């Protein structure tokens, strides 16, 4: 092999390595990086979205600041996860009794096409009276979900209907609007209730 050929190969090798590194960077840290998951929600004071509660009041993240807050994303056409979580939440609120009365409890729909203000009003009426239902324009729901780092996706089902995959964790914030922790889907009450207590009692 001539010296020139060796150099050529060496150069090709360097180019290949550089390309690999470049592609690696593009995929991991660069514009091709997958959307980060498992991130904490930002503080409520840093979120921006406008929605309507189930009584038609204009609401946004600032509505929640001043009291400890519990937020859950779901949709009323959800047969299993959402009624289960809302009844878990209702049970935790019952356990906390008077302690929880100072709390904001919000169920935000990820399916505003079907979950109108009226649909939300009827749905939340079956759960603990503290639970508020929020809906609104699709873009505003998307902005809310982004702030909470919640994910959702519309999935077609048999027979032309659709369902929604969505983050099923319950997010907790202190009275200042700072994220404290989250309760995983179907987490037993003996873990969930102390977590809520911590959000309630956090010094502000």
């Amino acid at each position, binding site marked *: 092999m001539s010296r020139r050929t060796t150099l050529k190969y060496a150069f090709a090798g360097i180019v290949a390595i550089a390309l690999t590194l470049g592609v690696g960077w593009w995929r991991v840290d660069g514009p091709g990086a997958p959307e980060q998951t498992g991130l904490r929600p930002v503080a409520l004071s840093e979120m921006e979205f406008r929605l309507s509660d189930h009584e038609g009041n204009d609401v946004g993240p600032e509505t929640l600041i001043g009291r400890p807050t519990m937020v859950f994303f779901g949709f009323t056409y959800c047969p299993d996860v959402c009624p289960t979580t809302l009844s878990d939440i209702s049970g935790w609120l019952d356990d906390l009794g008077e302690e929880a009365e100072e709390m904001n409890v919000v169920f935000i729909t990820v399916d505003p096409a079907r979950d109108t203000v009226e649909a939300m009003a009827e749905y939340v009426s079956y759960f603990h009276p503290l639970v508020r239902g929020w809906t609104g324009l699709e873009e505003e729901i998307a902005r809310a979900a982004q702030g909470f780092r919640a994910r959702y996706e519309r999935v077609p089902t048999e027979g032309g209907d659709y369902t929604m995959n969505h*983050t*099923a964790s319950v997010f907790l914030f202190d009275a200042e609007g700072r994220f404290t922790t989250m309760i995983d*889907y179907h987490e037993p009450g003996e873990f969930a209730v102390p977590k809520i207590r911590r959000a309630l009692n956090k010094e502000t």
Partner: protein
Amino acid sequence: MTVVYGLMAALMFASSAAMPAIAGSEDVVVEDAWARASIGVNRPGAAYMTIRNTGDEAVTLTGIRTDLAMMPDIHQTSTNAEGVSSMAPAGEIEIAPGEAVWLEPGGLHAMLMRLQRPMAEGENFSMTLDFSDGGEITVEVPILGIAARGPEG
């Protein structure tokens, strides 16, 4: 506690269809059946129960039927590492001898799509479970409130 024995249930609630010959599935017992009430008929309903194989042969649940819903199916809910929940048809479910499968919130559920009438709290509906040996079991499912968390309410 509601314990509905397959044979008894079939005799009590079976439609006009004659009972097929049954082998393994005659030893299947369904316990603690319950469902949530629905709001109207547009939203899918969900029912839960424990299906226990008390015999010494494996049985395979192949499907469910009910006149309450045009498209009933067993679904599996799962939650991934990022906390995102989704559900998908569970397919056929084999139950080993002496074992049981639990249809319960967050796991398996009988998904009742295309409701033919609203599911009203306090009422019952019948649901038939079909097994691969040709056997079937019909159970009466009590409808509890929307916020019910288990067979006790």
